[in-house]
């Protein structure tokens, strides 16, 4: 069963108040007030001296479980919100693999599900490793078992990568997560996703419909993931959200009748929406706050919007 072996997150210590982004991004006073007052977005992380590669390496450097185990890493997946993060022929993923001594691994990017690509990457990594094990001598002995490394995090280069349509402000940061096919730590019990290409439009004609259907659609995949795991929301200790904004999750809680204090919203005011790294950052926060005990079940949820929309949810056992 797919499992998270270790998670490391890098969030820059430099925080930028969203008011200071108003000028460069062309935000009105009302938009800034809306972000702060209702969306709960006060500041975002920026690391102006770090390249994209440096961000990813800083996250990987904190992954103690990787050190000395590089030879076991068979796949490196880079889960991304933005389809393009550098000019051709720059390949940030390959440039990161070499200093990490992972040049032997099959490395590829997972994208086109925007901010839901992180959960997809976990599912892909687990299935690739399980398929390899079924075809070969690799066994779940915990010592030689192959691993996959999932990287995520992006630089907020462009306006599109800094703010999303009165909804969220992106922050810089990165995460690194080791995945195995048979681990015992954080086992994935189920994964559900709904890819909605019908929300795509060049003119924004579907934006209002997406706003209307956003929360019910997300609730739908969360319930589907719970059903597939044979659980209900009452069995869930915490929800690890994507950091789109506070008001969306406050309303999700009303819709789901789930207590707000069991949704890990801590990072939204100080880090903003850290692309696909949100779920990993919120997992780390949940562990640091002692919210997860062995045996607890938790639910990760994300929406990727842009070029359509993907709603995704994943249930784990800690």
């Amino acid at each position, binding site marked *: 069963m797919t499992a998270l072996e270790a998670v490391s997150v890098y969030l820059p210590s430099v925080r930028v108040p969203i008011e200071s982004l108003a000028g460069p991004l062309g935000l009105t006073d009302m938009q800034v007030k*809306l972000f702060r007052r209702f969306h709960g977005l006060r500041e975002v992380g920026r690391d102006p001296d770090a390249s994209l590669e440096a961000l990813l390496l800083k996250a990987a450097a904190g992954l103690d479980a990787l050190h000395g185990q590089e030879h076991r890493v068979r796949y490196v997946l880079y889960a991304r919100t933005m389809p393009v993060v550098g000019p051709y022929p720059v390949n940030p993923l390959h440039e990161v693999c070499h200093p990490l001594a992972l040049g032997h691994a099959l490395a590829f990017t997972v994208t086109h599900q925007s901010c839901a690509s992180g959960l997809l990457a976990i599912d892909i990594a687990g299935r690739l490793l399980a398929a390899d094990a079924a075809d070969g001598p690799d066994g779940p002995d915990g010592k030689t078992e192959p691993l996959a490394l999932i990287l995520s995090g992006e630089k907020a280069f462009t306006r599109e990568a800094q703010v999303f349509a009165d*909804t969220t402000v992106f922050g810089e940061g990165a995460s690194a997560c080791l995945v195995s096919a048979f681990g015992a730590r954080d086992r994935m019990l189920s994964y559900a996703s709904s890819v909605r290409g019908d929300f795509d439009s060049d003119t924004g004609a579907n934006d209002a419909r997406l706003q209307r259907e956003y929360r019910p659609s997300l609730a739908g995949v969360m319930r589907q993931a719970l059903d597939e795991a044979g659980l209900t929301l009452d069995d869930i200790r915490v929800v690890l959200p994507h950091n789109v904004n506070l008001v969306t999750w406050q*309303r999700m809680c*009303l*819709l789901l009748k789930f207590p*707000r204090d069991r949704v890990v919203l801590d990072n939204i005011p100080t880090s903003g929406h850290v692309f696909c790294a949100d779920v990993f950052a919120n997992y780390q926060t949940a562990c640091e706050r002692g919210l997860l005990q062995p045996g607890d079940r938790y639910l990760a949820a994300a929406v990727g919007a842009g070029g359509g929309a993907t709603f995704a949810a994943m249930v784990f056992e800690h």
Partner: protein
Amino acid sequence: MTAQETGLDGDFRQQVLDTMTTVLARLLDRTEPVTEDMRLMEELGLSSTFGLELLLQVEDQLMILIDVEQMDADQMKTVGDLATFVAGHSQPG
């Protein structure tokens, strides 16, 4: 539901309603008046984002803070529903 039925301060609710209809007309660029019984989404086409901007402007004009955490947007069908909620879930800001 009327202000009397909910035990709200009727004068304050009327003040909220008046402010809200004025702001809505401006936000939506309407020349026709906005009335209490109009449906926010179906009739006025109010999006979530405009809805939050409306609340922000009502807060500013009436110098109040609205407890949005308690607001179930799906229950706010009409302009009157929203005015009733705001009048019952706000405090001086």
